[in-house]
Structures are given as C-alpha cells and as structure tokens.
C-alpha cells in the first residue's frame, strides 16, 4: 500500500516536472514523411587542361551525368540554367550560384591527355547546400580508349558518396544477342558495358547458346550450348575467348550453371535418365557432387553471397516453387507460397533479397522477396519477363522482356529494386538472358 502511494506520488512528480524539461530542452520534432524525387545535380563540362583533351572532357562529363540520371535517383540540371561556369578546376566554387538553381550536388572535373596518350581525369563532388566538398577530390588514369570506364568510375564515386551504397556503373553485362525471326532465331553470346556501349561478341551463331553467367571477378563466363545437339555447360575465358566443356559425360545433359562465390565451384543441373537434379563441381578438376536426389526437377541454383546456402527452383510440390537448402545439400525449405509459379531465383549480392521470375494468370513478373520468402514484391508485369540478374551493388535488376506475337522480339530492361525507374537498355538488335558482372577492378 505504502509502495503504491509512493509510486503514485513519484508518478505525479515526474509528470509535473515534464514541462520544465520541455521548456528548457531543445524543441523536438519528428520527421516521418519525406519525398521520393530525384536529386537535382549539375555536371558542368569538365575542364580540358590541354587542347587534346577538349572533346574527351566533354564526353566524359556527359557519361558521368548519364550514369547518374540512369539510376532514377538523380536529375540533371540542364546547362542552359547555369548562372556560373567552372573554368578552373582549382578555383573556389561559388556555392550561392549553384544554390540559386537548386543544384544539390555539383560535380566538377578536369581532363588532360598526355603526349603518350595517357588520360588523366580529376574530379570533385560538392555538397552545395552544405557549402563543402563531399569527400576528397580523386583522379583516375587510363588510356584514352578506356575513357568510358574512367567516366563510369567517376560516376560510381559520386553515386557512392551520395547514396552510401556501392556503385555499379563500371561493370559489364554478358547476354544472348538474337537475330532472325522467332522460328529461326540465331543466338550468340555478347558482352557490353552496363549501359549498352562497347558491345563485343564472344561466340558465333552456329549453335544455340543460353544463360551465360559471370564469374565472381568477371574474367570468365559459364554458359549452356547446344553445339553437340543437347545442352552442355562450357567455360569461356572473356579475354582470350577460349572455352572448354564442364562435366563432359556422355548421355548427360548439363545446364543452368552458376559460379560459387569463390569462383572455383560451379553449381548446375544435370539430367540423366529423365530426372534432373542439382550438382556442384570444382572447376580445378574434380568429381561432381550430388546435392539433391529427388524424382522431381531441381534446377536454376544460385548461391548466397557467403556460399553457405543455395536457392533453387523445384516442382516437387507439383508446381515450380523456390526452395533454400544448405550448400552441401540436405532437406530444402520452401520459401515461395504465393499463387502462380516461381522460377530462376537469384540471390542478391547484398544478401538481403532473392529475385525471381513469377508466372501468374498468364502474366510474367520480375519480383523480389526476403530470403525467408517474406515481403514478396513484384517489380514488373508484362507478356514475358524473365531471367533477373543483380547489379553489383544489389540495387538494380536487369532482365529480358519479350513482346507478344510472331514478330515479337526480346530486349533488356532494368528496374530499381524499389520498382521504380524501369528502363530499356539500348542494345543493337534483340537481346535476352542478361548476366551482370561484378564491379570491375
């Protein structure tokens, strides 16, 4: 009883003293609603420090701006709106001039080309409303032929400093380039910059190729080819374009390969006697290890970033669904429970999401879910969307979309993980089955 009275008394006193604090303490405000809009930035043409660099300076600043705009998170302020110009990389910036046009970030740079053909690019990122640079100035060197990569690296730095995430611009995409009508389509492997530039072909179009996958450091590609008449996995060196078959056993169809995080293990499906199961194999030369042994079809395996688990699709429940199991095999756990069929799961490089293709009510979707199957979100919807692949920072998903009808063609698209910013990648001709490389060194 006494205690209760004391508690009550203390409570009253505490209550009474609250206004005294409120009066003298700081004013506390909670902001729980913001806006989702692209951040306006300005990239004045980089300063050309010698005559040879004039055109390159302009091109590099254009690529930097395009990279940032491509993310959907930034909006470039057109040059016509500028009320100040940057003619000297080292002279102080008049922040007020950039505040006046509401530029929140300002990227300045300088480009020089040496007599030996060496390219040197310096840049600074300035937080206009903080009146201060955001991070230190940096400079990149390279050959003039690699100017786009240098520009991507500058943009990666800008993106990373503002968003707090890793960049993804200096990366490449391997895909299947398609020509010809649907009933006689030629396919060959091609590789390009993430933005569609610098396309190169890795194979000829004499045989059907499918599902290329990058190694963790981007130097090799695993893919499936029908050149022997039935599907078989090949390993291709990107630099030399040399290749060899993986798990070359007669009478076995192998497909749907994917590298392990260490780059030496390959995970794939093998079909023998009408049953498809998952296997792993060391590329250094080893026996294949069986991971599943079920009468159902198990395929499309993908490692978690730490290599401890595998997500894959299986029809053991009667329809295609997603399952997770330990990297060494074991009892799989189903994670997809929505309506429709789920396929081609890919673990995010950040480890937080699994991207997948979903077929439901005659429509195809690219979606993401947490690794336990929760928080499923569909990011796209169309006649045929499939084959998601993650950007190196786990923020963007690229996939192929095919239009309906006999004249339908396939193209590559990218979408932000938030479901915003759906963009078509500008590729020469039709394209499908993209696979994103890691960030280049």
């Amino acid at each position, binding site marked *: 009883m*006494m*205690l209760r009275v*004391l*508690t*009550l*008394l*203390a*409570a*009253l*006193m*505490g*209550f*009474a*003293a*609250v*206004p*005294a*604090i*409120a*009066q*003298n*303490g*700081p*004013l*506390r*405000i*909670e*902001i*729980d*609603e*913001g*806006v*989702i*809009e692209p*951040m306006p930035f300005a990239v004045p043409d980089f300063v050309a420090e010698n005559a040879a660099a004039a055109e390159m300076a302009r091109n590099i600043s254009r690529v930097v701006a395009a990279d940032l705009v491509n993310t959907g*998170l930034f909006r470039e302020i057109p040059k016509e709106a500028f009320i100040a110009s940057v003619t000297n990389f080292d002279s102080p910036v008049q922040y007020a001039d950039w505040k006046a046009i*509401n530029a*929140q970030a300002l990227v300045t740079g300088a480009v020089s080309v040496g007599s030996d053909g060496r390219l040197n690019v310096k840049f600074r990122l300035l*937080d206009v*409303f*903080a009146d201060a640079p*955001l991070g230190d100035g940096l400079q990149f060197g390279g050959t003039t032929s690699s100017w786009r990569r240098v520009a991507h690296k500058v943009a990666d730095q800008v993106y*990373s400093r*503002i*968003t*707090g*995430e890793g960049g993804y611009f200096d990366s490449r995409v391997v895909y299947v380039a398609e020509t010809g009508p649907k009933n006689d389509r030629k396919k060959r492997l091609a590789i390009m910059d993430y933005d569609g530039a610098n396309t190169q072909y890795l194979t000829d179009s004499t045989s059907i190729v499918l599902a290329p996958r990058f190694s963790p450091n981007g130097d090799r590609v695993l893919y499936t080819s029908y050149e022997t008449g039935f599907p078989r996995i090949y390993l291709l060196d990107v630099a030399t374009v040399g290749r060899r078959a993986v798990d070359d056993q007669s009478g076995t169809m192998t497909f749907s390969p994917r590298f392990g995080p260490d780059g030496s293990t390959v995970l794939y499906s093998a079909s023998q006697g009408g049953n498809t199961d998952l296997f792993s194999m060391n590329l250094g030369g080893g026996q294949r290890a069986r991971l599943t042994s079920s009468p159902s079809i198990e395929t499309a395996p993908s490692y978690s970033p730490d290599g401890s688990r595998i997500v894959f699709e299986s029809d053991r429940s009667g329809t295609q669904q997603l399952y997770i199991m330990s990297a060494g095999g074991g009892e799989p756990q189903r994670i997809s429970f929505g309506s429709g069929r789920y396929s081609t799961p890919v673990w995010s490089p950040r480890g937080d999401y699994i991207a997948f293709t979903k077929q439901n009510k005659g429509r195809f979707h690219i979606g993401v879910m947490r690794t336990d199957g929760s*928080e499923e*979100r569909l990011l796209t919807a169309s006649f045929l969307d499939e084959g998601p692949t993650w950007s190196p920072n786990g*923020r963007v998903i690229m996939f192929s979309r095919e239009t309906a009808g006999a004249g339908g063609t396939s193209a590559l698209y990218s979408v*932000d*993980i*938030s*479901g*915003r910013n759906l963009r078509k990648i500008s590729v020469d001709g039709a394209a499908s089955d993209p696979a994103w490389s890691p960030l280049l060194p």
Partner: protein
Amino acid sequence: MGKTGKAEAFMNKGIYISGIGHIGLIVWVLVGGLFSSDRTEPLDVAEVSIISGEEFAALTAPASAPRATQDTQEPTPPASEQPVTPTPTPDTTPETPARPDVSQPEQPDAAPDVSEIEPLPQAEVTDEAPTPPAPPTEDNGTTLLTQSTRPRPAPRVAPVPAAQPTPDAEVSDTVTEATVPTPEPEPEVVKPPVETATAPEEATTEIVTEAEEKPDAETSLTSSMRPRSRPARPTKPAPSTQKAAKPADVQSSVNDALAEALGGGATETSGNGSAPVGPPMTSGEKDALRIGVQRCWVVDAGSEAGRITVTVAMSLTEDGKVAGNSIKMIANSGGSDQAVNSAFQSARRAILRCQQNGYDLPKEKYAQWRDVEMTFNPEKMRIK
C-alpha cells in the same frame, strides 16, 4: 449535510432515542417533501429538459442560430436550410459525451497511465529537480537503477522478447528487497518539499491542456504551464547556489556554447533571461517547422540509408535559419558507416535546403526553438 450534522450533535450528547426520533421525523419530512415536490415539479422538469438540449446546441453554435433553424425547419421547406439543421444536432451530441469523459475519468485514468508509462522519465526528472542535496546525487544513481529495473520487468518484459528480460527479472528479484527501501525514502525526503506543491496542480492542468491544446485556445496553457515551471527555477538556487549552476551547465551547456559561439543568444543560464520564451509552442507552430523540412527530405527508399533513422541537433538563429555549421548527428538506428552518413547528409540537406530565408517560427518564443532536435524516421517511406 444538514442531516449528518444534526445526527453528530445528538450522538455527542448521547441521546440516542431522541436522535432516532429526530431522524425518523426528518426522513418523514423529506419523504413528504419529495411527494410534494413531485406534485409540483413535473412541469418544471419537462421545461428543464428541453432547455438543456437547446443549451447544448447553443454551446457549439451561436445560441440564436440553432433555435432559429429549428423553428424554420417546420415552416420553411427549402432544401438549403434542412441540411443546415442536422449538422448542429450531431455536433451537440458528440460534444456532450466528450466533456463528461474528460472531467470524470481523468483523475482515475491519469494516475495508472502515468505510473505504468513514465517510470523512465521520472528518473530523468529527478536527476534535474532534486539535485540540491549532496547525498541524493549518489543515491539518485541507485534509484535510477532500482526504479528502472522494477517497472520494466513486470509490464514490459513479459509481453516482448524472452532472452533479455528473464535475466533482468531474476536479478531484480534478488536485489529489490535490499534496494527498494533505500530509493523510496529518498524521493520522499528530497522531492516533496520542492515540488509536491507544484506537482498536483501541474498534473491536473497538464492533462486538461494536452486534451484541449489542439482545438482550443492557448489561454489554458499560458496560465498553467509557464508560470509554474519558471518559479521552480528561482527556488533551486535558494537552497544551494552551487548545485543550481550544475544543472544549468549540464542541461544546456552544449546548446549555450553553440549559441554563444555563433553570436546567437548570449545567455548564460537557461535562456530565461534575454531570449524571449513566450507562451508554449503550439502544435501548429511545430507542424510548420516539421512540414517545412519534410518537403525537402528526399528519401531513397531502396537504399540501406533509406532504412536508417537519424536524429540531428542544431541551433537556429533568431530569424529561423540554421546557425553556422551547427547541424550534428546525435543518434542513429544503426547500419554501415556509409549508409548512416548518407542518411545524415540527406537529413542535413533537407534542413539546409528548405530554410530559404529562415523557417517560419514565432520570434517571441525564440528560447523554445533556438535548439532543435529533429528525428528523421523513414519507416513510413519504406517500400512494401
């Protein structure tokens, strides 16, 4: 009341029999009076009920207006006036329940709610208010622990998780018997002399003002909160000047240092002296600042930074602009360094970008908004 007074007088005299007789007579008289009053009152009661209903309507809208509309309903058919009449009647009905709810349940409800919810704020408050006596400061540390451990395990630990609470509960069981007596006398000795007089009054007025703050006038707030909290300050230095200086330093030394360094307030103590305090900030004035900032707060919902809550502290100049480079991050909900920094930059950019020529804040209350702590919580913005 009259009955009981008489009865007590007779009891003192000891004449029970006569007392019983008188009581019987009084009861008889009352019963008779009731009968007689019933006979006369029916007419009055009927009138009173009608008047009261109109009075309630009159309280919300101008007294003459509702009556006139009721009268006009019957004779005038036009559709325009009919919708007008229903609106006042529903308005009156909700208000009548609202007022009794506030007045009656407040006292019983307020006590249990406070005791359950506010054990933590109590501890914080006691640190500042009772500081004068020297020994209590050491004891306050113990009281903080004991008080906090006590309330927490019982209501909060049971519903929420299992791992952490159980050890706390076990520890508290062993410790409570020994420590509980020590903290309890301390609040009695220390707090009551200074604050018991203010506590009950402010508690009652607070409850009223919080309920009425948004819809109604500020008068109730100004009369209650401001004066009480101010005299509490001067009373502190009276017992001991040294300790009065300490809380001021602890509370606002950082803020004052910032303000002085920036040439803002130039007030030494808590800001009561030179900076105008004025009546308490209304929710509308706070909302103006909140909305002013949030329209510039760009959230990148897909990023890790878009899942981090950051709290920043800053000082404002008298014209409502951020003083110098005063925006500092004082708390965050955790994440990678890069993401936390990005979340902070985003918050800072919002504040700086939308200040324009200064946030619209009442100058007469500058002391209240000179130092601002702003929490940016992106929870609602998350992609789902």
